[in-house]
């Protein structure tokens, strides 16, 4: 069941890259979990409930990693009084994946108030993950008070500028961007001229067939500017990636899963491991959403990503913390 046609931008009244239909569709996905397979620029998406229809071989790529986000260590209010427990549950979820991830991405807001003990707690919990390497980008909460000095000392040694960097894994080029520094009154997330110039230079020598995965905290697409859910100069950054056949953008910040495809780019936001936030415009403010305790873990989660070489496919699967750890192999036919 392909949604690729439906997800193209049809009417873009606000010139923000989101049409109402696509937006509502994205929202319908939130909280349910989605698998996306991109092949030759064509996206096929499946809800998790249709997982049984997938060819299991497509779920095993040459490169597998997991994304966690917004652990907000130190948060202790009603929306989740125990963010330690839910981060541990996320790590357990990752450790139970059928294909062990090679590394983790943390897309920011590691801490709630950038306190040393908050970072220490997260580090300690992540040591329990089967994947030992963790690549971070900062959220605005990690930069509070010292403009990110402590963050960089801990997580971004050898990075450029405010903490941006790139690396390669099995032919896939990863770019970690920082869009939470030097935020201006009334503004959105911001990459800044220095970082944009670095990005242009960083990808210049790559072949167009190189799959590129960009990760940053605040979404690099305009989800809901009224709440600051966008990055003011993201279009400039994406313009440097237009020539690539496969670009995946992984973000956090909005504490819910959303997905959009625009040309060669798949955008994805991850759930938080700490607390959910309301759907855009569905509340007076984007403050933590209080839900009954038994529902909380259905709104928190981790994302695992599989890359299959030769098929130009990136499969993105959101797993909620309350879902069963594995899909039963017996339920998966070899073809669909």
């Amino acid at each position, binding site marked *: 069941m392909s949604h690729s046609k439906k997800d193209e931008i049809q009417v873009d009244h606000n010139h923000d890259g989101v049409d109402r239909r696509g937006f509502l569709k994205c929202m319908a996905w939130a909280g349910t979990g989605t698998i996306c397979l991109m092949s030759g620029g064509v996206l096929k998406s499946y809800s998790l409930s249709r997982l049984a229809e997938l060819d299991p071989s497509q779920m095993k790529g040459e490169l597998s990693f997991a994304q966690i986000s917004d652990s907000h260590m130190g948060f202790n209010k009603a929306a989740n009084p125990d963010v330690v427990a839910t981060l541990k549950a996320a790590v357990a979820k990752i450790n139970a994946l059928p294909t062990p991830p090679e590394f983790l991405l943390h897309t920011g807001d590691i801490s709630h108030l950038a306190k040393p003990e908050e970072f220490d707690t997260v580090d300690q919990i992540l040591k329990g993950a089967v994947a030992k390497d963790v690549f971070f980008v900062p959220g605005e909460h990690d930069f509070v*008070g010292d403009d990110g000095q402590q963050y960089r000392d801990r997580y971004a040694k050898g990075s450029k500028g405010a903490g941006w960097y790139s690396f390669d894994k099995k032919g896939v080029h990863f770019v970690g961007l920082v869009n939470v520094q030097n935020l201006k009154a*009334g503004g959105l997330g911001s990459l800044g001229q220095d970082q944009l110039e670095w990005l242009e230079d960083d990808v210049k020598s790559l072949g167009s067939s190189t799959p590129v995965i960009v990760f940053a905290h605040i979404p690099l697409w305009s989800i809901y500017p009224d709440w600051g859910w966008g990055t003011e100069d993201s279009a400039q950054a994406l313009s440097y990636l237009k020539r690539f056949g496969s670009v995946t953008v992984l973000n956090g910040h909005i504490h819910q899963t959303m997905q959009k495809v625009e040309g060669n780019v798949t955008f994805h936001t991850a759930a938080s491991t700490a607390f959910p936030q309301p759907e855009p415009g569905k509340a007076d403010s984007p403050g933590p959403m209080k839900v009954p305790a038994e529902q909380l873990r259905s709104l928190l989660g981790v994302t695992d990503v599989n890359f299959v070489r030769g098929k130009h496919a990136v499969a993105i699967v959101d797993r909620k913390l309350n879902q069963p750890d594995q899909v039963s192999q017996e339920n998966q036919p070899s073809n669909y």
Partner: protein
Amino acid sequence: MSWYRNLACVAFVVASGMAVAAATKSAPGTEPNAPAASAIDVKIDNFTFAPGTITVPKGTTVNWTNHDDIPHTVVAEDKTTFKSKALDTDDKFSYTFDKPGTYSYFCSLHPKMTAKVVVQ
């Protein structure tokens, strides 16, 4: 009906007069016509500074209190005049405005939150 309205009017004037008298009395040593410098509270609630714009005489201390269950900051637009640390729930920040001018400020965690203090 007009009788009631007039009575209400009289009551308002009397009350106002008492308020003025009280204010004058509470600020000894200042010139009679100068507004008394004091303190004013701004609430941070639901991702909003309230009131969003306040006009105060110079020398006024503004006290911000965060009532949200998420941290906020109070940072001058120039990022130097005043800058709070992260204010967690019920944390406070104060700044005394000694010079006239318009001071725009925002929350550096949620930059869409903006407000201003006009100092006369």
